[in-house]
């Protein structure tokens, strides 16, 4: 059942440019995928480590700016991508050392402060970043000689990166390291007693999260062929956090659903609903009222409840203890 659903959604994703028709919708698909990678990266911290970052747009922006500057200084795309990811991971290490001084709200506030400082630098260091006018790049990479200029090719490239991200993060989450990371979230004292180095586990998780944030940042740069301080602002950090929370933290599917929700509301629904900002806010409020744990866990609960109603004889088996959210794809 689950495998069938997985196979069907893979086919649907892979053939999307063939059946949505218009290149505009293909581009929306690319945006959803790249934001889903961003949200999945943040979810490593928020969902698995229980550390809420409100400064991830800073990392996202560092990747995009580093990539753009490398390209505009004559680096080829391969070098630029490596440089951008290296810069992001280095920045993530600095972020982590500072932010892990605090836990809970302290952690949140430190990430806010760092994010705002990165934004301030992007905005004010005009000789490097061109200030609020931003930096444009003129080309997209050509992996294996394949042009990514048109919408379907760029979509397929993004899809490959997206599937790679989902696979790696799924393996990560199922690995012993993923389990110990969840341990630091739920039972930090016990983990310490068992001899785990909590700080190091969280630090490595931060780097892992930073890597995927950097990947998303580079995709954003290639998609828009443009980066400016707005992509680094506090609002951008809040937006990706909203994607993670609304979809469901600590699940693999949640951040993807959250990214789809926000991207579609902002870009597609805004063409039909003049007050789309209000509706988006109202959807968040409704999610909290009806499924406070997020859309994906909420729907899973609803589905189990319906199944239980339909097949009362298996109630004890399927309806009793809800499985941990991490187990759901």
């Amino acid at each position, binding site marked *: 059942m689950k495998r069938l659903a997985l196979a069907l959604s893979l086919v649907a994703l892979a053939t999307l440019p063939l059946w949505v028709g218009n290149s*505009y919708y293909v581009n929306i698909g690319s945006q959803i995928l790249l934001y889903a990678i961003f949200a999945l990266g943040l979810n490593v911290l928020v969902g698995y480590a229980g550390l809420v970052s409100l400064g991830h747009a800073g990392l996202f922006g560092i990747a995009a700016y580093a990539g753009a500057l490398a390209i505009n200084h004559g680096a080829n795309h391969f070098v630029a991508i490596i440089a951008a990811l290296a810069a992001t991971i280095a920045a993530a290490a600095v972020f982590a050392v500072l932010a892990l001084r605090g836990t809970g709200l302290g952690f949140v506030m430190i990430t806010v402060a760092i994010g705002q400082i990165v934004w301030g630098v992007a905005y004010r260091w*005009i000789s490097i970043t061109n200030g609020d006018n931003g930096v444009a790049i003129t080309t997209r990479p050509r992996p294996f000689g394949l042009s990514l200029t048109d919408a379907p090719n760029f979509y397929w490239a993004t899809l490959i990166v997206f599937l790679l991200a989902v696979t790696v993060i799924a393996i990560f989450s199922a690995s012993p390291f993923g389990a110990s990371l969840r341990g630091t979230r739920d039972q930090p004292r016990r983990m310490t007693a068992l001899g785990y180095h909590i700080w190091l586990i969280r630090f490595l998780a931060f780097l892992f999260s930073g890597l995927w944030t950097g990947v998303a940042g580079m995709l954003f740069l290639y998609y*828009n062929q*443009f980066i*400016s301080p707005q992509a680094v602002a506090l609002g951008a950090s809040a937006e990706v956090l909203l994607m993670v929370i609304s979809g469901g933290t600590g699940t693999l599917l949640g951040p993807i659903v959250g990214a789809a929700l926000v991207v579609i509301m902002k870009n597609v629904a805004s*063409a039909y*609903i*003049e007050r789309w900002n209000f509706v988006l806010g109202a959807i968040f409020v409704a999610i909290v009222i009806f499924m406070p744990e997020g859309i994906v866990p909420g729907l899973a609960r609803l589905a189990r409840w319906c199944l239980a109603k339909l097949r009362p004889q298996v109630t004890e088996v399927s309806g009793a203890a809800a499985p941990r959210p991490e187990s759901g794809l």
Partner: protein
Amino acid sequence: MTRRLTRRTLLRGAAGSALAASLPLPAIAKANPIKIGLLTIKTGPLASAGIQMEQGTVLFLKDRDHTLAGRKAELVVGDTGGNPAGAKTKAQELIERDKVDLILGPLAAFELLAISDYVARQKVPLLGLAAAEDMTQRRPNPYFVRASATSAQPMHPLADYAAKDLKYKTAITVSDDFAFGYEQMGGFQRVFEDAGGRVKSKLWPPLVTPDYTPYLAQIADADAVVAGFAGANPLKFMQQYRAAGLTLPLLGGEGMADDSLLRTFGDESVGLISASPYSAEFDSPANRKFVEGMVRDTGNTPGIAAACLYINGMVVDAALNQTDGNTDDREAFIRALRAVSLTDSPRGAFHFDHFGNVVGNIFIRRCERKGDKLVNTIVKTYPDVSQFWTYDEKWFLSQPVYSRDYPAMRS
């Protein structure tokens, strides 16, 4: 707001559609409606000017009975939300999904810069409001037409007026810390200093500055203060300027006392001298008609955003009449757009230079209280102002674009 659920209104007069229905088939090119895309900002902090842009466009189409050069005109509005990525997505929506023939807007320079390359690749004419200098100077977009002004275009005559008519010798500038501010103040400085004046210091408060006191406290010993703020900042700045007891004359750019905002302003703006490509007080048949229409439909005096979008509409109309309603030959259409020369528009007579930037009136206005209303009275009109002012075009373009550090301060 008359439309709540959908902003995608098919704008066509009942008479027009009846006529179209009775046209004999097969359909000729003229039977297809011309699709006009509008990139604007209807949500968030920049919505004020963005909503005006839509009002100006809607009024223009209404005045023409939604028919341009014999073709019905449809408007498709995209709300960018005021950020570059949103502008890019909305530009793609208008071009790739809605297949518009041309785009009006966007408002902000950072939006324009984010979409310029893409729109040029797609060969879609773009009639922008954003003032970024290099779009019609050092990095020109061949599909761009600007009927409003570059950032510095009104500031050059303002500096001329300050030095020659007001006889000011020294000035301090204070402006939003972003490209629009740099370009405005750079333009003022160059002309003011070439006319013998001196800019003593340039202050750059961040775009988000709740309290201007740290900057106001540094203002002293000059003949005038030149302010270049945009959005909600002019009101905040002027309130705090007056409250701090500062009495130096205040000069400003087009954003400082927009006609559309004066109804919510208080006495803090009285006495402000500002330069703008538009004034609601300008007396011409086209402007009287435009102001009447806006007051009737929106209940408010129009400002530069509504006026320039209305003017953009007139430019499109004139170009379509030249191409006989044809937009399919994009090269011919953009040539026709840039060749437009109007003698009567809400901003008076104007034409375009070979970069597609406007050459036309710049009004020097003084904000005054008339009865219970504030108005910007025109005190001087500079006709046929080019983006290069009186400078040689080649020399102008060989200089760097105006920035935070250029022109350099004279010690």
